[in-house]
């Protein structure tokens, strides 16, 4: 089975994101970047399928943020091919437009299965995963938390998450694009020494910047953080003072036995 995984870098929210002077976009100059968590799960799911037997894993990414470290880590985890796409501009296009960039790189790989995280927190006009499927002309289903080989050849069995810890098991004919929310186990840890070793032996296949699609416009008029703490009454003081106050509030509501 040929598996392609898409991994993305997104701004790290550990510091509040700066909004630029126009008020309609982020100023990413001082931001740091991390791998999109659900893409990490998508990669883990791919590696698990490879370890189960008979799959090859290609990883496709845009050259942005700290992507090199993510790609060397992917190599250390067992990815067979790594394709890095150069960007024409400083920042990646929004997901809907980016789908065309990825599709161009993925089409020649003729994958049976494309795994990509179902969501990234910087998405406003839709998830990359279903738009990528549309651009590739492949079927799609998302919010997937488990992928196993199917009963018949050329099929897989997947679990789609629903509320209440309920899942729907689906039988899927390949080829397909899956929006992964979680792998069957948390993404594995690879020690730094292995990543550094991968740096010495791994060759990325670098591809030229392609043109992003121009999708139907949504224009951002304003970006702003929600008024923080506008709702909660904040309690201050020493631990014991605050604890006593909370106990009082709970007692007043008849919640203390």
């Amino acid at each position, binding site marked *: 089975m040929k598996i392609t995984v898409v991994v993305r870098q997104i701004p790290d929210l*550990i510091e509040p994101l700066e909004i630029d002077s126009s008020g309609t976009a982020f100023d990413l100059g001082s931001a740091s970047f991390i791998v999109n968590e659900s893409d990490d799960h998508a990669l883990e799911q791919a590696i698990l399928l490879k370890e189960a037997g008979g799959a090859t894993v290609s990883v496709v990414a845009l050259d942005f943020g700290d992507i090199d470290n993510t790609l060397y880590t992917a*190599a*250390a985890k067992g990815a067979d091919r790594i394709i890095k796409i150069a960007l024409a501009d400083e920042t990646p296009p929004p997901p809907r437009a980016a789908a065309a960039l990825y599709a161009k790189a993925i089409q020649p790989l003729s994958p049976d299965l494309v795994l990509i995280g179902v969501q990234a927190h910087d998405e406003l006009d839709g998830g990359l995963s279903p738009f990528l499927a549309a651009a590739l002309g492949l079927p799609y289903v998302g919010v997937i938390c488990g992928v196993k080989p199917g009963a018949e050849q050329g099929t897989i069995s997947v679990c789609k998450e629903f509320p209440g810890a309920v899942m729907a098991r689906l039988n899927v004919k390949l080829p397909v694009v899956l929006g992964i929310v979680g792998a069957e186990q948390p993404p594995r*840890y690879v*020690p*730094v020494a292995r990543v550094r070793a991968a740096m010495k032996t791994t060759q990325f296949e670098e591809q030229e910047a392609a043109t992003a699609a121009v999708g139907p416009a949504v224009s951002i008029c304003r970006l702003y953080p929600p008024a923080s703490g506008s709702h909660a009454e904040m309690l201050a003081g020493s631990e014991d003072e605050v604890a006593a106050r909370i106990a009082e509030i709970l007692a007043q509501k008849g919640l203390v036995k």
Partner: protein
Amino acid sequence: MATVEAPRGLELLEQLGKTNDGKSPLGCMQCGLCAASCPLGEAMKFPPRKLILQAAAGNLDKVLADPSLWMCVACYTCSLRCPRGIELTDGLWPALRDAAMQQGFQPPAELQETFQNVFKYGNMLGRSPRQRMEWAKDLDVRVLDLSKEPRPVDVLWLVGCYPSYYPRNQPVARAFARLLTQLGVTWGVLGAQEKAMGECDRMAGEEGLFETLVEANRKVLDKQDFRKLVVLDPHAFRALQKFYPRYGAWYPVQHYTTFLAERLEQLKPLIARPVEAVVTYHDNCCVGRRCSCYDPPRSLLQLIPGVKLVEMARNRDNALCCGGGGGGMWLDSHIVAQGGTRLSDLRVAQAAATGADTLAVSCPYELARFEDAAKVAGVEGRLKVRDIIELLAECMDLGERNVS
């Protein structure tokens, strides 16, 4: 998978014998002194002697796969007592953990997260490096941030991750800043450029991560002009004293207890009031058993009028570890799941048994560990946990409350 050939156990042990870390593990005579000395030895499936036995017998894979491999808290008791002088703590354990991770065996999840935090953010707490000076906010003494204003100083003080970010430890950092200023020493800090020294990561087996920290830290330190480094964290002291020189990064370094103990005559005039307390001192492992350093902390405590010093039955080289080293800070769940005990619980009971009302420490991990343990043991009301700096600050009017 980019294949790393599985090392044979014998080869690994032979390799260890060739490093600076003491004698070859192949000289082990299976006396069992290590297992008997280890505070968690009974709960380990593979205490040190069995690690060597199984590795040499060709069962390395069994050892690497076992949860027992993640129970060592780097207390050094086994290494101190090994009659063959084998470097178990600094050599064998980290090498086996490193081999395990390279083979794809997963360390406990909590430890993975700290490795990732240190790699991304330079601290195990996962806090932003830009907030590293949070401890100094609104401080009443001037803090020279050498990353912004480099200039020659006597002391480059490495504040440490917990004192920088963790609320319980921040007052200790603030008090030390006031104390340094009172001593008339020229001093500065690295601000947002300061990262963890990496000792816990090295002992937990992440040799690669440790190397990246050595590289990053030496780049920053080599740009600065200072007479010595002073650290609050005994683990940082250990890293700079023993492991950094192996990479050619040598800096004169002192733990704060040694630094202050050399200045008793300058500290005396600063004393403003007595502190009436019965104090027992917990020897931490890194500035204690691992470098045979027991007197400086005691001389500082004895300096304080009103302090009555009492010793626990297990003290100095026989002190019981708090369980926080070697990744132990994040391995409590794992250790308990394997049938071990939280060592800090045992130690606090020992402290309370002396009749002391104060447990004095000089390692940042211990404030959190012992305060939690005191709550669990139900002695919270009658046993306070204080860093030595906090006691000095109290008698010198340099603590938070005392400053107007």
